[in-house]
């Protein structure tokens, strides 16, 4: 198989699951004839028909609610938010209805909500957000955020096969990112939910990150490697549940932690990671736990503002230097 993009990996993962299991179907805005705003489901309508590729009205609450209803009936809906930002319109369904159902009355709700997230350049405050942290605090949900092409496919399959509701955050900036085009196995494979991956080994500091920031972190690590510093980069891949053991192990080895995410700082998921490390690996820390994230504002539109807002390789490098200088 030739190398594929992250986007193609998601697409083929979804297609294979639909081929494998009749109960899997897709639901979302413009996913039919148009193939989705980002073309993830391109060709699906012809292949699977209107019953399994359902163009929904612009109404995120019923997209999620109806997915829940179908899931109760034993189906495995994969709902698409056109942009992750719009998930706020279906928020109540997710956090109160979907998430609490199994706890409350024992019915499984196996559904996936695909959320194209993140900034891709001047898309403004409503098409650039990273809303994962809201859901990482909701018991009953699972949250994943693959960074690589291999993981994109493997985690999507795991999410679809999981008997719980899973929010699948796919960073739009990775869809066609040339650097992560890769050959992936022809045969069926999955990536387990809840396991982090070490993307670079190191002994001097740990960066815990996920999504697109994995690459800024790797680049920063590479830069510092030139100066003799070995940074370990841990890609969380799953945020709820997240791989606490992997984080603690790495920090116990490197004794320094930098958490990086594209979401804004205050209340971002990085706080949880930092807090857990400060509690459970305290005596292994040789420096304060650091976080690098977007600034605490909406995502601004104009290029200088957006660049100021977003974390990038330079900012990660600077934060890492700071951490090492302590």
């Amino acid at each position, binding site marked *: 198989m030739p190398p594929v993009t992250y986007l193609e990996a998601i697409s083929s993962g979804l297609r294979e699951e639909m081929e494998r299991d009749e109960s899997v*179907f897709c639901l979302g805005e413009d996913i039919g004839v148009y193939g989705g705003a980002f073309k993830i489901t391109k060709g699906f309508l012809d292949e699977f028909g209107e*019953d*399994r590729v*359902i163009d*929904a*009205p612009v*109404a995120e*609450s*019923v997209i*999620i*609610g*109806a*997915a*829940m*209803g*179908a*899931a*109760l*009936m*034993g*189906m495995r*809906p994969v709902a698409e938010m056109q942009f992750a930002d719009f998930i706020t319109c279906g928020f*109540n*369904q997710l956090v*109160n*209805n979907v998430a*609490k*159902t*199994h*706890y*409350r*009355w*024992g*019915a*499984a*709700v*196996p559904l996936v909500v695909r959320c194209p997230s993140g900034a891709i350049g001047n898309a403004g405050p409503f098409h650039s957000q990273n809303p994962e942290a809201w859901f990482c605090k909701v*018991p*009953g949900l*699972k949250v994943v955020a693959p960074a690589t092409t291999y993981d994109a496919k493997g985690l999507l399959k795991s999410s679809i096969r999981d*008997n*719980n509701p899973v929010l699948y955050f796919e960073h739009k900036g990775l869809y066609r990112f040339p650097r992560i085009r890769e050959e992936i196995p022809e045969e069926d494979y999955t990536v387990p939910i809840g396991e982090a991956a070490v993307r670079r080994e190191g002994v001097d500091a740990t960066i815990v990150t996920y999504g697109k920031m994995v690459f800024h972190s790797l680049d920063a690590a590479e830069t510092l490697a030139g100066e003799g510093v070995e940074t370990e980069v841990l890609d969380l891949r799953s945020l709820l549940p997240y791989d606490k053991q992997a984080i603690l192990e790495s920090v116990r080895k490197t004794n320094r932690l930098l958490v990086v995410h594209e979401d804004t700082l205050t209340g971002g998921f990085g706080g949880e990671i930092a807090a857990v490390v400060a509690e459970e690996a305290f005596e292994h820390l040789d420096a304060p736990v650091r976080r690098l994230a977007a600034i605490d504002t909406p995502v601004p539109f104009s290029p200088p503002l957006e660049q100021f807002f977003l974390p990038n390789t330079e900012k990660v490098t600077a934060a890492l230097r700071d951490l090492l200088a302590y």
Partner: protein
Amino acid sequence: MNVETAPALSDPALAASDLDDLGLGRDDYRTLYHTMRLQREFEERVYRLFRQGRLVGAAYAGAGHEAIAAGSAYALGDADILVPMHRVIGAHFLRGHTARDMMCQYLGRANGPTAGKDGNMHCGNWDHHIVGMISHLGANIPVAAGVALASKVRGDGAVSLTYIGEGGSSIGDFHEGLNFAAVHRLPMVLIVENNKFAYSTPTRFEYACENIVDRARGYGVAGALVDGTDVRAVYKATRDAVELAREGGGPTLIEARCTRLLGHAQHDDAFYVPRDIMEEGWNNDPVTKAENLLLERKYFTREEIDGIQEEVNGIVDDAVDYAEQSPLPEPEAALQGVYAD
């Protein structure tokens, strides 16, 4: 029947001949009446337990809604799915939840349908094809649509039946859910239980149309307006809607008019409800109405009716005893069940 042809509430057609010919026999009437009476007695007991400090949590009742609960759920087949709201415990009974089950649920016992995880009407049970109620009003209408979507796609012939108060019909999920069901002609029936108040709020602060069912046309679905205190009228409207849905005719919006005969919940004395509304409500008490019908039509004798009453009392007594003797959950059980395996 669609909204254009739906008889008005006062249409005598609803009251008489039409409804004599429902194909219901003596056993059916017994079941319907028994269910209504059981709802009434069960909920009265729940209120009493509350006053005695023996209940866990809050006490809601569907007094005035018994005909809607029984009449609608009785129109379902075994494979159909019930997606209930807070005033239709009778529908739970018809679907297989026993009085013991529900009392254990109200008392937070380990052997209730939610094992103490949730309380009162907030229980589902997939064995009985009952989707658990969520407090957030309207939120289960999209879910009922999704249930119906699965039935349509699979062709399993099942219909989903759900409810909302006229108050809850103001929320976005009502619109999104009904519209989605309409677009895909899903086998769903949505009953608006219009009892004139949402908590303390009168209908003039809830909507400005004449009837909620006037909305049917704006969704392109069938509509019906029925006397929600007449169990036969509710049964007929629901049965017709279920049939239509099963035949691929899509959803029906049924507005069932009734009066909430108590406050919103135990703590509410309903001081804000004008006396004439309350009086008229009690004069049209659906349980008494059903009883009178059964007597008038000579389906049952006074003695038989009294027998049902006694039977129901016994069931409720037993349910309380059973529930009070049932164990509370172990504290650590709180940790379990967040995720399915």
